[in-house]
């Protein structure tokens, strides 16, 4: 087991290194920080631009590999470089990472738990009304991209707020600035801000997981070991939760690692549309400002996050499936 995990970990570290390097090279070739200076008035002399770009390690006249070496050396020492305005990327990322982390964590928990529960319930009563309704709904949800869903939610919230005459859902930002209503007031405020982004992020996840969990559960329900569990005197509920659900969770956990990347992308859209100042919003902004170092830093973090999810799913897999632990 330890050897298995160590080998996986080593493989992942290599993958992260290659992925991040690739992202840096791509960003450094495709983005053009020099164009940021083009429409400044008065236009700075070329020598000044060169000097500034070189100081930020963004000068496209320096060979790509040399820039890459400087960047990689910095990353190994925990320094992600400087953004186009000259402030360190580390500070910026550290401030924004918390926002994204909260959003993704909540969306992930709501999405996977909700999806697994819905799917399991639908499978237990196959072709019942609940199964049919949830199947139809998940088909509909899977056809709606996050960008459309988020905008629909905003329109819905505006409509509800208009109808009720009060602000029930708040659709911009993470919290209201300068609010002075004590602890519970600010908790309420945060929840009002949180509801719609969480829904927009987790709804697709619920749909995917419920379909997958339903199919896995159906495969397991007719299996001999569930009948044996009933035969030895377990109640239907205990047999279903302790034996059927647990077994059906194993492949779903493997699937989890695949959906995590999609979740990060969804978080990017959600942040940008709902005006949360997280990493995803920063990514989109930094591409428009040709901010190579910030883009590379976020790519690195995304790769690390995806691989952490894979590792977590390996661990969960081992926890749920005794055969993995033995082998």
């Amino acid at each position, binding site marked *: 087991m330890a050897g298995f995990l160590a080998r996986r970990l080593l493989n992942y570290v290599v993958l992260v290194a290659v*992925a991040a390097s690739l992202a840096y090279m*791509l960003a450094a070739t*495709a983005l053009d920080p020099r164009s940021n200076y083009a429409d400044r008035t008065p236009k700075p002399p070329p020598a000044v631009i060169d000097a500034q770009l070189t100081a930020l390690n963004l000068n496209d006249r320096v060979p790509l590999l040399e820039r890459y070496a400087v960047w990689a050396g910095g990353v190994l020492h925990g320094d992600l470089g400087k953004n186009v305005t000259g402030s360190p990327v580390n500070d910026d990322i550290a401030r924004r990472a918390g926002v994204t982390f909260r959003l993704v964590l909540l969306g992930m928990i709501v999405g996977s738990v909700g999806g697994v529960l819905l799917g399991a319930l639908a499978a237990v009563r196959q072709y019942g009304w609940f199964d049919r309704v949830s199947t139809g709904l998940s088909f509909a949800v899977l*056809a*709606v*991209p996050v960008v*459309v869903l988020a905008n629909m939610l905003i*329109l819905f919230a505006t409509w509800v707020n208009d109808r009720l005459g009060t602000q029930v859902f708040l659709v911009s930002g993470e919290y209201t600035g300068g609010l002075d209503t004590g602890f519970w007031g600010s908790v309420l405020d945060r929840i009002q801000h949180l509801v719609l982004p969480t829904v927009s992020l987790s709804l697709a996840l619920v749909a995917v997981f419920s379909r997958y969990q339903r199919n896995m559960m159906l495969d397991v329900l007719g299996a001999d070991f569930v009948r044996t569990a009933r035969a030895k005197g377990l109640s239907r509920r205990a047999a279903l939760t302790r034996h059927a659900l647990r077994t059906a969770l194993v492949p779903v956990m493997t699937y989890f690692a695949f959906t995590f990347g999609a979740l990060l992308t969804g978080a990017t859209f959600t942040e940008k549309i709902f005006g949360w100042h997280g990493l995803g919003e920063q*990514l*989109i902004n930094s591409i428009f400002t040709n901010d190579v170092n910030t883009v590379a830093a976020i790519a690195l973090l995304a790769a690390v996050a995806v691989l952490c999810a894979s590792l977590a799913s390996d661990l969960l897999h081992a926890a749920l499936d005794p055969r993995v632990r033995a082998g």
Partner: protein
Amino acid sequence: MTLPEEEVAEELTPGVPGRGPRRAPSRGRVVVRRFLRSRQGAAGLAVLVVMFLLAFAGPLLSPWSYTDRDFTAFLQPPSASHWFGTLQTGADVYAVTLRGMQKSLIVGLLAALVSTALAALVGAFAGYFPGWADRTLTWLTDLLLVLPAFLILAIMSPVFGEGTWALFVLMLSLFLWMVTSKIVRSMTVSLKRREFIQAARFMGVRPVTIIFRHVLPNLSSLLIVDATLNVSAAILTETSLSYFGFGIQPPDVSFGTLIADGSKTAVYAPWTFWFVAGLLVVTVLAVNLVGDALRDAFDPTSTRPR
């Protein structure tokens, strides 16, 4: 399933041609019949045909083209002269939407075809040639799975200028093939042990010929279903990228750019958002229904309730 079991199952399965005195119906015909008999498949296909007709024949019905601006009607609700209303610029929503739909459908179809072909090739070669070829290809697949597709495509976006949408399609398909190629690889590994492949090998057929003539045709059902589902994935990705300005570039329009513009005015001019969003959702839903019904039609063991 072990090998003898599989053989028995094959003999019992109807639809394998050339067995017994009565000629069994061809597999293609069986699949088509099963597909059309399923309600959702037929409905999805019908909707999809209507969408295609609308996208390519619909613009002929309206006097407005997508580049026209009506300077007497800015942000007007739907009326007799502008069926879906107008945008802030005076553009006719009907004409613009159908133009966007054309682009999205073409991009989706092409990206799906290319990515499925890529998945089939990479998966089959990785599965057929064990050793370093397999290891390299598998590693490459894992690497692309780690890189968030949206991020890379967004970084590449400055390269997609005006008129380079073919490059965009290529990049899009580069990020859709990995999961399928993993499935194709594992199926190729098990196919390689089957007698007909062994026989071909011992007759001296070249490996590449075996892959194209024996391995890939045997995976055709998986690949067809996958290509269908990739169409919807590609349309959705294209929409999201174009929404943020990373995909199809103006003056060209697609679902994504239209939804981005429409969402800004949706509160007081709902027609700028809902027609586009509605058409997008219906199209993707239809594609998904077709893909799902195809999967059931190809699967001889599936039964669904009437």
